[in-house]
Structure formats: C-alpha cells, structure tokens
C-alpha cells in the first residue's frame, strides 16, 4: 500500500495549479507539434527543453512529459488527415486511418485513435505504477541477440502488409533496408553507400525523408492523377447517431486495445526498441488474430486502435528504463534524460528511493496528461474535420508546403528536401505499377536497429549464428518469428502447386 500513498502524494503535486496548467499547455503544444508532418515528440521536447528553466525540475519534467503525450496523440492526426505519418510511431496508423478518411469516416478514425491512445496510456501507467522496479531488470536482460530476435518478430508482422505480388513486396522490403544502411557503419567505422560522394548521405537517410516523400508527395501526385481536381474525400457529417454508432463499433475492439496496450508497453520498456516497433507489432498481431484480416488496410477500425493503443503504451514504457536505469528507450526519452541531467537529477536505480517527490509527481502527472490529452484531442476533432472540407485544389498545395517544411525541419538540410522529392517521384511511378511502398517505410525504421544488433551479437559469439537460438529469451522469440515469416510463404507456395496441379 506504500505505492498508493506515494501515488496520492504524487497527485497532490500534479494537481498544484502551476503543474496542472503546465500539463494542459504541454498537451496542447504537443498535439500541434505531433500533428505537423515531420515534427514529432523528439522535436517538441528538444526545443522546449531550455524553456523549462523557468520552473522547478518536477514541473519542468511534468511539462515535457505532457508534450510527449500530446505529440503521441497528435501523430495520429497527421496520419489520418493527410495520410502522412508525422512520426515513425504513427506509420501503422496510416494503413487504416487513411482509407477511413478517404471513405468519409475521418471522424471515426480520429475518435478511435484518441480513445485507443487513452486506453493504451492508462493501462501502461497502471503497469508503470505497480511494477516499475522489477520491469527494469527485464529491460537490462535484453542484450543484442534478444533485440535482434525482437526485430525479426517485428519483420514477421510485415508479411501480409504487402500486395499479392510477392517479388514486388520483397523488393520493397529490401530497398528500405538498403537505404537504412546508408551512412557511417559503426561496426567498422567506415562510411558506406555514400552515393556520388555527396556529404549529405554521411548521416544516412532519415526515415522521415522517405515517409514524407512517399506519402506527402508520391501519394498526392497519385491522388491528383486519379481525381479530376475535385475532393477525393467524401465529407464527414457529425451527427449524434453517427457518434453513437462509432462508439458502439469501437466497443467491439476492446480486446485488441487491451492486447496492444500490453504489447506496446513491454516492447516500449526494452531499450533501443521504443514505440515504433511496438505499434507495428500490435498492428500485425491485430491483423493476424482478426476474423477478417482481409479488411485490414482498407479502413478497419481495429487497424487504427491497435497501433495507437500500442504507441502510447510504449511511450510510457520507454520512460521506465530511463528513470530506473538511466537508459533511454526512445530518442525522446534520450532528450528527457538530458533534461534531468541539466536539473541535477541522476537517473538510475536510486532515483525511486531518493527522489520520491519527483518520481511520483511525474507518474501522477502522466495520469493527468493522459486524461487531458484525450479531452483536448476530442475537442479539436471538429476543427480538424473542418479542414478536410477545403477544396482539394487548396488542400493539395498546402500538403506540398507542409511536406517541404516538414522534410526540412528535422535535419535542416536542403539535401534531405531534394531526396524527399526524388523518393516522392520514384514512389509515384512505382505505385502506378502496384509496388507496395509501406514495407519500404517500415524497413527503413527497423533496419538501423536490426543490423547493428545482428552484427554485435555475431561478433560477441565469434560468428556463431546459434546465439539467436540457444539463449533463453532470444531463442523462443527467434523461433516464433521464423515460423511467422515462413508460414505464409509455405502457404503461398502450396496454393500455387495446388493451382498448377
């Protein structure tokens, strides 16, 4: 019951007028930053970090955590409304959120995203409150082989994301992985795949450049070709009946929301993994366990619920190793860690003992941030829907402008903007021939985690690949992943033989 006492004390801190005000402000700011393609929670937290010197550390941390939460909610808005994933964590949300919006059901997608985020956030904070210290030790047990096995599992969920054209799907995965290898190879210390010796490739190809290129430019060109200048979206009308119907439909996805929240949280606490693999895996699992997997990718609400519940759960999860071990589980928590250093707080196993006020104030404010994020988000939904009513010939150029600015902002290099245009044009031309592009986007996110983990594992194991099978945690994960990858392939081949026979 000590935990409850701590939590009560925490709530008293979180609900001090200053802190509560900061939570609300942070959520609103985060929501807008997250909704902007190209900017995600990392940018929001990094940029506002120096502003937090105005308030005491606990309040500053609460503010930044609120921005983090707000941005996680906001990411879904860009995915649904513009079809551009605002951050890597929201990639999976586009798969079904976008088709829903095109069908005139943007309201359903947005409400689903908001409520699922709330659900994921709540479950993960409860887990956080109850089990932070023991979970931290699990995070430490994850070495390179375990991380690689986990990435393999994430890749397994790709299978089925592509089109029916197997060679084109594999092509797409591979090209994404090759692009993810561009830049400095940390294992050998050598630059690699520096095309035409252009210095801009030294820092690799940013996920956002590919994602905004493909979704913000390529997809837009494709839509413009397919429509005659008129809006391609049927307009959403908000009525009480509709809202009730939507809620009823959402109610049916609660099982997916629960399993995705747990999955997201556990993937989130693993260092290096973070929220993106968590949301992808949740999407994959939701599709695999669904009775109607063929509806996924065409506007299935569960396909919005799963990644959104998971990415919010994971973002809370990734704070756990940061606070208890001083290991950031995601880029955003890395910045938060920097903030704690500036405020003179030493993250680590002793933080929970020595800085109880800080830790429990933060945990309580996570509850508050989550609650306010869902309320504020729902209040803004009509405004976002209104945006969709703009004539397409105005919305389209604005999306191009957002892509331009969003492609520039993360790295502030024109090199990335040109690259984005190239990916956009290439993506458009390939899209016309039914090359699926989502697998390439996912591959460029997971590649930079998977490849070093693979090589570090092999280096430690003297090049013995059995390291992925004979370790107690890595083994089962690897085997499950391999089964999941090979099963559909085997099925496809069998079907082909049957057809031929």
């Amino acid at each position: 019951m000590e935990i409850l006492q701590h939590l009560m004390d925490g709530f008293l801190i979180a609900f001090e007028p200053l802190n509560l005000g900061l939570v609300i402000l942070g959520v609103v700011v985060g929501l807008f930053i997250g909704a902007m393609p190209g900017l995600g929670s990392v940018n929001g937290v990094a940029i506002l970090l120096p502003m937090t010197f105005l308030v005491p550390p606990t309040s500053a941390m609460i503010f930044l955590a609120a921005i983090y939460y707000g941005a996680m909610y906001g990411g879904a808005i860009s995915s649904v409304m513009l079809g551009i994933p605002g951050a890597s964590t929201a990639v999976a949300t586009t798969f079904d959120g976008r088709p829903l919006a095109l069908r005139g059901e943007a309201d359903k997608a947005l409400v689903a995203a908001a409520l699922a985020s709330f659900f994921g956030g709540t479950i993960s904070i409860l887990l956080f409150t109850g089990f932070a210290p023991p979970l931290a030790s699990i995070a430490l047990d994850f070495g390179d082989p375990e991380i690689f096995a986990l990435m393999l599992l994430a890749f397994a969920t790709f299978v089925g994301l592509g089109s029916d054209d197997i060679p084109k799907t594999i092509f797409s995965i591979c090209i994404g992985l090759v692009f993810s290898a561009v830049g400095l190879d940390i294992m050998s210390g050598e630059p690699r795949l520096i095309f035409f010796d252009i210095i801009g490739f030294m820092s690799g190809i940013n996920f956002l450049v590919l994602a905004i290129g493909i979704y913000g430019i390529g997809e837009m060109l494709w839509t413009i070709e397919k429509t005659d200048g008129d809006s391609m979206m049927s307009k959403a009308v908000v009525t009480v009946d509709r809202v009730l119907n939507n809620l009823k439909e959402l109610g049916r996805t609660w099982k997916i929301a629960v399993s995705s929240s747990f999955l997201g949280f556990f993937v989130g606490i693993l260092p290096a993994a973070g929220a993106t693999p968590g949301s992808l895996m949740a999407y994959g699992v939701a599709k695999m366990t669904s009775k109607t997997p063929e509806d996924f990718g065409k506007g299935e609400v569960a396909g919005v619920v799963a990644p959104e519940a998971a990415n919010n759960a994971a973002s809370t999860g990734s704070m756990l190793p940061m606070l208890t071990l001083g290991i950031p589980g995601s880029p955003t928590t890395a910045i938060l860690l920097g903030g704690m250093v500036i405020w003179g707080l030493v993250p680590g196993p002793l933080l929970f003992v020595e800085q109880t006020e800080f830790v429990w104030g933060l945990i309580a404010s996570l509850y508050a941030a989550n609650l306010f994020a869902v309320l504020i988000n729902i209040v803004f939904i009509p405004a976002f829907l209104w945006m969709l009513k703009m004539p397409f010939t105005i919305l389209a150029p604005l999306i191009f402008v957002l892509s331009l600015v969003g492609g520039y902002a993360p790295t502030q290099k024109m090199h990335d903007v040109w690259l984005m245009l190239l990916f956009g044009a290439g993506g458009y031309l390939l899209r016309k021939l039914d090359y699926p592009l989502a697998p390439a986007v996912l591959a460029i996110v997971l590649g930079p985690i998977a490849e070093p983990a693979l090589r570090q594992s092999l280096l430690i194991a003297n090049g013995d690949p059995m390291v992925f099978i004979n370790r107690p945690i890595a083994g089962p994960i690897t085997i499950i992943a391999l089964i999941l990858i090979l099963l559909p392939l085997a099925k496809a081949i069998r079907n082909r033989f049957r057809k031929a026979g």
Partner: protein
Amino acid sequence: MRRAEIITAALMALFSIYLMVKSAELPIGWIEDEGPGGGAFSFWLAAVMLLCCVWIAFNWFRRKSPQSVSSEPYMDSTARKKFLLVGGGVTAMIALVHFVGMYGAILVFLIYYIRFLGRHAWSTTMLISVSAPIVTFFFFDVAMRIVLPKGYLEPLFLPLYDIFL
C-alpha cells in the same frame, strides 16, 4: 502498362546492381569470428532486389502479373500533363528555396497552384498564399526556433528577428 512494367523492372535491376557495386566498397563476405562485413548487409539485400527484378521480368514474360497483361497506357496525356504541372511546380518550389528562401518559395508556389491550377479567385489565392508563410514563420522561426532558410531575402527578416526573437 505492359511496356512500363518491364522497363521499370530493368531500371530497378540496374539500380540494384549499382547498390551492389557501391556496397562492395566495404567487405561483403563473412569475416572469421566476427560475422558479416560492413558491406554485406546491403550487398546481399541488393542481390535479393536484383533477383526480385528477374522474378518480375519472368512474370512479365509469362504474362502472370496484372500489369503485364494490361493494355491501359501507363500515363495518358492528361496524367502526363498533371504530373508535369504539379510535379514541376513542386520541383520549382524546392529550387526556389535556394534563392528566395522557404517563405518566398511557399508564396510563389501557392499563388501558382491555387490561382493557375486551381482557378480560384485572386482574393482566396492571396489570402492563403500570404497567410501560410506568416503562420509558418511564427510556428517555426519564432515558436520552435527552427530557422528556415531565407536565401537572398535574409535582410528583410533581420528586423523581424529583432522584434520576435
């Protein structure tokens, strides 16, 4: 469409070969007691890409994929026109950033698109084209402290920095 399918496959095959060559600048084999070399990951994946292109060509040859039997044109004249007008406009916008900066480029592009492609009234055009860069300035330069490029228009912004930053 049928012709586009095989041409694209051929181009992608060439690109795969280029990637393989480029990857081979680093060791691509298995280093004893260490595992794969620095270029191995991308080399072998590019090799798989090449195989996929061959596979696509094979399907094309056997007329197995929908694209290889489609007689629809890959791009008809309206599609080509749209692609050039819109894609060209975006390209020009990015090129303009180098000269008149982000804000100038956005202004010109929006006027071009909304007025000349969208055929909206001048009042609508100007309202959106002028307010978009202003909102962007306050969001990025002022609030987010992300300074967007200004090109040759930089002197115009110095007094704004004095006021807002």
